[in-house]
């Protein structure tokens, strides 16, 4: 089954075409990586998929339904979660509250005005489960703003998981993390395989080729190739345009 | 009726031009420095007081006006150095509070020096007459002088913004702040210059108005709020937007006050119409602002992407 179908997505900023008729399909349970040199338009693509930037043309279908015109929160409520290239957490909230808020978003109305939210056991239990999955259960009580960069990355994934998404967009989840943390986040992503569809943007090629089921190569806003990791490795056009460049 | 319409249109334009002079500095300070400055109205008031003081000293309004300008500029530069500079990396809330405190200080300082009673200045003989403009309609010379001086200043500003390197930097800064530092410009000097110049323009507007309204400690407050409306309607950071919006606000406010009741009389009883007109007229520009923002939240000429 196709979780995400991108059809002819096009976006320009002035004279610069940042997305040029991008099309690809993502099957449920698969990890689809988008790679490409800096400035190829990867983050702009993620923004269009998540809804914070409107495409000029093309369609985005999630589970067969057109979401091209839906705003960000509506997409999130349909099961689309994302991490940000620059981590976006609630720094003044505790780690647990960051995740509990994501649970709250999908369980019951938030227009409840008197009962203390921090005392809702159902929210906290599900939040703890997500934190356990990413290995942050031990620091649930800390203020999120005081976490290390790698821990914030893990927290973002915990928040995303707490939404019980069917589609997850990860924008450079390994960027800026140490070797140890990167390995841990890599294992975490691998463990999600088969449960939901993931669009992964990442510069760490070793991680991409180890994790992805399919890889698309984005250069100057255009997908020049899509295929399995083996196919991409052997594609001469890709080697010329991108991989060769990054190896030397 | 036609005469009244022409008269009030001229008044509206003159009021609008005045608002533009005050708004120009404010919108640049917002656009380029991202600082909200509530003390800007106080600069306008200060300009009027300085002109009044120098007029009393020299015996000539023209000399008084000329002498007020460098002092207003110096005061603006000093304010930037002492206070505003510390606000660039602060939240808008902190900026609001600090400049609010500054405004209280300037207002009270003016009261201490010049007292609370209004100070008026007589027009020089040459400017106090009126000239025929249309048929038997005459218009005060001085108001035309304000209109001309304001248009001149606006033209100069427009030339500066669109034709000089400084203007290029300002436009770049208003649409993208990082760009200015990337161009290798000394940001601190640029900000100092913008702030001081904006303060001087506001002071110039206050000084020009002096013969018409007389200097009062509260005179800056009303003008400040109106300038806010102007730059919100025009689009923050846009000089062109400020110009269009200032004329719009000036015209709507002036014409609304004189013709609102007349128009209302066509649909309701005369008594009710004049009552309704009195209530609605002062609210008109705020309703205008609300309408424009409901359609274009970033104003008529949005600058920042």
């Amino acid at each position, binding site marked *: 089954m196709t979780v995400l179908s991108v059809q002819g997505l096009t976006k320009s900023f002035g004279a610069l075409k940042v997305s040029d008729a991008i099309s690809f399909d993502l099957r449920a349970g698969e990890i689809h990586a988008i790679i490409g040199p800096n400035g190829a338009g990867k983050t702009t693509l993620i923004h269009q998929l998540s809804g914070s930037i409107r495409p000029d043309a093309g369609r985005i279908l999630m589970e067969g339904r057109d979401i091209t015109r839906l*705003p960000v929160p509506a997409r999130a409520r349909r099961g689309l979660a994302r991490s940000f290239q620059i981590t*976006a957490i609630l720094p003044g909230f505790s780690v647990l509250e960051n995740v509990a808020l994501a649970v709250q*978003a999908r369980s019951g109305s938030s227009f409840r005005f008197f009962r*203390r939210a921090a005392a809702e056991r159902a929210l906290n239990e599900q939040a703890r489960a997500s934190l356990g999955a990413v290995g942050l259960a031990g620091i649930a009580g800390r203020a999120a703003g005081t976490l290390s960069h790698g821990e914030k990355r893990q927290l973002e994934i915990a928040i995303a998981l707490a939404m019980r998404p069917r589609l997850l967009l990860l924008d450079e989840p390994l960027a800026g993390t140490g070797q140890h943390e990167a390995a841990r986040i890599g294992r975490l992503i691998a463990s999600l395989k088969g449960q939901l569809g993931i669009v992964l943007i990442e510069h760490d090629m070793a991680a991409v080729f180890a994790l992805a089921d399919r890889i698309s190569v984005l250069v100057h806003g255009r997908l020049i190739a899509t295929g399995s990791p083996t196919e991409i490795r052997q594609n001469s056009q890709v080697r010329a345009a991108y991989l060769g460049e990054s190896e030397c | 009726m036609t005469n009244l319409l022409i008269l009030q249109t001229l008044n509206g334009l003159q009021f609008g031009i005045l608002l533009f002079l005050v708004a120009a500095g404010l919108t640049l300070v917002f656009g380029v420095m991202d600082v909200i400055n509530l003390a800007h109205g106080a600069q306008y008031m200060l300009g009027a007081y300085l002109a009044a003081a120098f007029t009393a000293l020299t015996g000539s309004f023209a000399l008084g006006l000329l002498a007020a300008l460098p002092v207003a500029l110096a005061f603006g530069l000093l304010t930037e150095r002492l206070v505003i500079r510390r606000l660039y990396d602060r939240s808008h809330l*902190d900026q609001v509070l600090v400049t609010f405190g500054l405004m209280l200080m300037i207002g009270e300082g003016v009261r201490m020096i010049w007292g609370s009673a209004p100070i008026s200045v007589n027009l020089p003989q040459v400017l106090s007459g009126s000239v025929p403009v249309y048929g038997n309609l005459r218009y005060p010379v001085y108001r035309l002088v304000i209109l001309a001086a304001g248009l001149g200043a606006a033209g100069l500003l427009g030339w500066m913004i669109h034709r000089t390197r400084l203007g290029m930097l300002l436009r770049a800064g208003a649409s993208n702040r990082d760009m200015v530092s990337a161009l290798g410009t000394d940001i601190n000097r640029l900000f100092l210059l913008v702030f001081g110049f904006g303060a001087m323009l506001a002071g110039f507007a206050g000084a020009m108005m002096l013969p018409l309204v007389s200097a009062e400690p509260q005179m800056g407050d009303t003008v400040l709020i109106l300038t806010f409306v102007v730059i919100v309607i025009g689009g923050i950071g846009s000089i062109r937007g400020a110009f269009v919006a200032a004329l719009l606000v000036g015209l709507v406010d002036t014409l609304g006050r004189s013709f609102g009741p007349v128009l209302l009389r066509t649909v309701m009883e005369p008594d009710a119409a004049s009552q309704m007109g009195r209530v609605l007229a002062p609210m008109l520009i705020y309703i205008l602002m609300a309408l424009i923002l409901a359609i274009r939240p970033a104003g008529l000429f949005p600058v920042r992407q």
Partner: protein
Amino acid sequence: MSARDAVMLALVALLAALPPVLQLLGEPFLTVIVTRALIFAIAALSLDLLLGYGALVSFGHAAFLGIGAYTALILSGRGVTGLELQLPAALAAAGLFALVTGAISLRTRGVHFIMITLAFGQMAYYFASSLSAFGGDDGQALRARSTLFGADVLAGNSGFYYLVLALLALVWLFLRALTRSRFGRVLSGTRENEARMQAIGFSPFPFRLIAYVVAGMIAAMAGVLLANHASFVAPSYMGWGRSGEMIAMVVLGGMGTLTGPVLGAIAFVLAEETLARFTTHWRLFFGAAIVLIVLFTRGGLLGALLRGRK
């Protein structure tokens, strides 16, 4: 119980004991001044919901104070003096005004929002100035003080004082519950990081609008009390200077803490009264104090108090 809850509890206990002590000291008039401070504390609490929890810098909050005050003036002029009728009417009027102006101004962010709320506040000010039947620019004296179910509770200074204190405590408890509820958590979340809140599925707008309406209604309640306190209502109640003062109360007290703004309001009104006794130019010192405090300290009064304790 958190430290700020403890500070509030101690403060309320202290305030409850104040009128008899002032009576003993032969300064009963001070009760009247403290009453005024407590009324502003209610208004500051409502503004804290916007500033401290919603990160919405509203510069038109005095309009709601004025709406409450004018409701009391208009109703008492028609012989309706019961608070049981005046308060609901004031809340309804303020709620409606907040709903309309909030729906427009909350479409914008940052500096735009500050200036638009300021402009709406001035609009209310000019509207009040044009009400010639109610004194226009000069304002008008209240025909009769409000009553509560026919009882003249506001007639005596200490009766008025305790009513205000009780309402202050109630509003504090109400806002404490509200800010810790699911709703409050979302509102605070939009303050922390709006993009993140949207990404997990929340549209900030309805939460902000509800907060704006609730804050406006509470401020209107303070306005009804303020009209009774001065026995007089004028457009100057909603001047933008008043809005600025309320922001100063909240920030200098410590925003986003509820208890801080209460302290801030009390300190502000008492400082104003004290300074005004020594010099007619108190605004000069007041302005300077605001500038220096904001530039060189952080965390407000409550922050300083709690740090000092540790």
